[in-house]
């Protein structure tokens, strides 16, 4: 068995053991009523037409916010990163501002943000924040990841600064940007779910809050599972893009 295969098998095995443990705890009621058996939760939520429709509608809303936020966050993050690259005077300041913005807990920032965009706009904004920082860092570091030999070649070829940016710095940043995208993809999904807690009309986050308040434990469990799966899926989708495109640039 190749090391890669072994890793995959071990990963699946680990996940199965965890699910099995959760199942046993749920079946035996070891953790009380708040811990349903996973199979029971999934079958009862997906088996019910109403709750199934509700889940998929919420998922659609969350995906829409996450996608919009990913696009906005990526564009803004890359633009700010590029600005810092073009104007080195701004670089240190932008780095610090972005880090501070990223370190402040969202809960502390939330009232200010709600006042800014309203509760409906929160999920897109938090998704954009979640993905924007990753893309900013990826852009800022990627544009500086030019190999010294390539830089020497462009210098001795009598190239202009503009040519160096377009023909060398930007392509050199592609692997880093793709790496950032894998983080930004899952970050956008988590950001969107979190943002929905602050009063969005619909979405997985809304469903989490309502099922928690109504003690619909099985629904809550399935919603959380869906959010995690979608986030994982976003990560692997971006990783696949990275693998396809990135090979050419590194």
């Amino acid at each position: 068995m190749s090391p890669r295969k072994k890793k995959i098998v071990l990963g699946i095995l680990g996940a199965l053991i965890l699910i099995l443990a959760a199942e046993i705890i749920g079946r035996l009621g070891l953790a009380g009523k708040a811990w349903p058996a996973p199979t029971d939760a999934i079958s009862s939520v997906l088996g019910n037409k109403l709750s199934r429709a509700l889940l998929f509608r919420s998922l659609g809303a969350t995906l829409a916010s996450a996608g919009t936020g990913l696009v906005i966050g990526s564009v803004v993050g890359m633009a700010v990163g590029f600005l810092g690259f073009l104007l080195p005077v701004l670089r240190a300041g932008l780095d610090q501002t972005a880090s501070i913005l990223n370190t402040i807990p969202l809960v502390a920032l939330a009232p200010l943000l709600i006042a800014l965009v309203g509760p409906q706009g929160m999920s897109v904004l938090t998704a954009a924040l979640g993905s924007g920082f990753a893309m900013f860092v990826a852009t800022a570091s990627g544009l500086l990841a030019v190999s010294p030999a390539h830089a020497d070649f462009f210098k001795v070829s009598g190239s202009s600064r503009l040519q160096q940016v377009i023909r060398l710095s930007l392509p050199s940043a592609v692997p880093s940007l793709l790496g950032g995208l894998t983080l930004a993809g899952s970050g956008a999904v988590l950001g969107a779910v979190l943002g929905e807690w602050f009063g969005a009309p619909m979405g997985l986050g809304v469903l989490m809050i309502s099922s928690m308040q109504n003690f619909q434990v099985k629904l809550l469990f399935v919603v959380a599972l869906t959010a995690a799966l979608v986030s994982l899926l976003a990560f692997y989708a971006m990783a696949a893009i990275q693998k396809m495109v990135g090979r050419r640039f590194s």
Partner: protein
Amino acid sequence: MSASGISLDRVEKTFSLEKNNTFTALKDVTLNVAQGEFLALLGPSGCGKSTILRMVAGLEQPTAGELAVNGLEPQELVNGHRLGVAFQDHALLPWLTVFQNVALPYQLAKRPVDETRIGELLELVGLARFRDAFPRQLSGGMRQRASIARSLVLKPEVLLLDEPFGALDAVTRRKMNLELARIWAEERTTTVLVTHDVEEAVFLAQRVVVLAANPGRIRHEEVLSFDTARTEGLERTDEFHHVVDRLTRMLDAS
């Protein structure tokens, strides 16, 4: 100072280290390379031979002394796109094909891409079949040949080779040297080759300058005038071995 070729007049290069310490990489280097000459700079690592090349390419500035290439500052030559450099690390762009890499100097010089010239050069370096391949699909020797084709594409007035075959195995390296000699015989560009390989220097160059380290300085100059052409077989002549032995002993002693 002659207006053609490369001239270094009492060139010195010091690098500043931390705490006001300085390191003298080169001291009192006076050197002339005639137009159309192939000169090899031979020396142990740390003797500043690459620094000389980087100064001629305008990548470093001499601390003292005069340096001119065809009567100009290196930067002027660079700005006129009249310099070709092949680096130890091939420095091909991984996202471009062989053809696109070799065409890049035209684009950087804002000149129309001469596809015929590129085709001929790729033929010359034996990569005609690989024009659409990416660098990662090529062997180390092929990448270096592509890099040399790129350095020659604009018909530069001066060609600088910084251990272009340094990372290759001995067999490939010998093959590359044969090819380089053949290419040079066709192009006849003023060339400076930096190497620590004695046989490579003696095989390719018309003149070998041996450098000593700490501080880097010129130790010996050897004009080579073999009767044989620079092709297969030269390395097996007594005369060749004689020169190689002598220069090797000189390197060992320094």
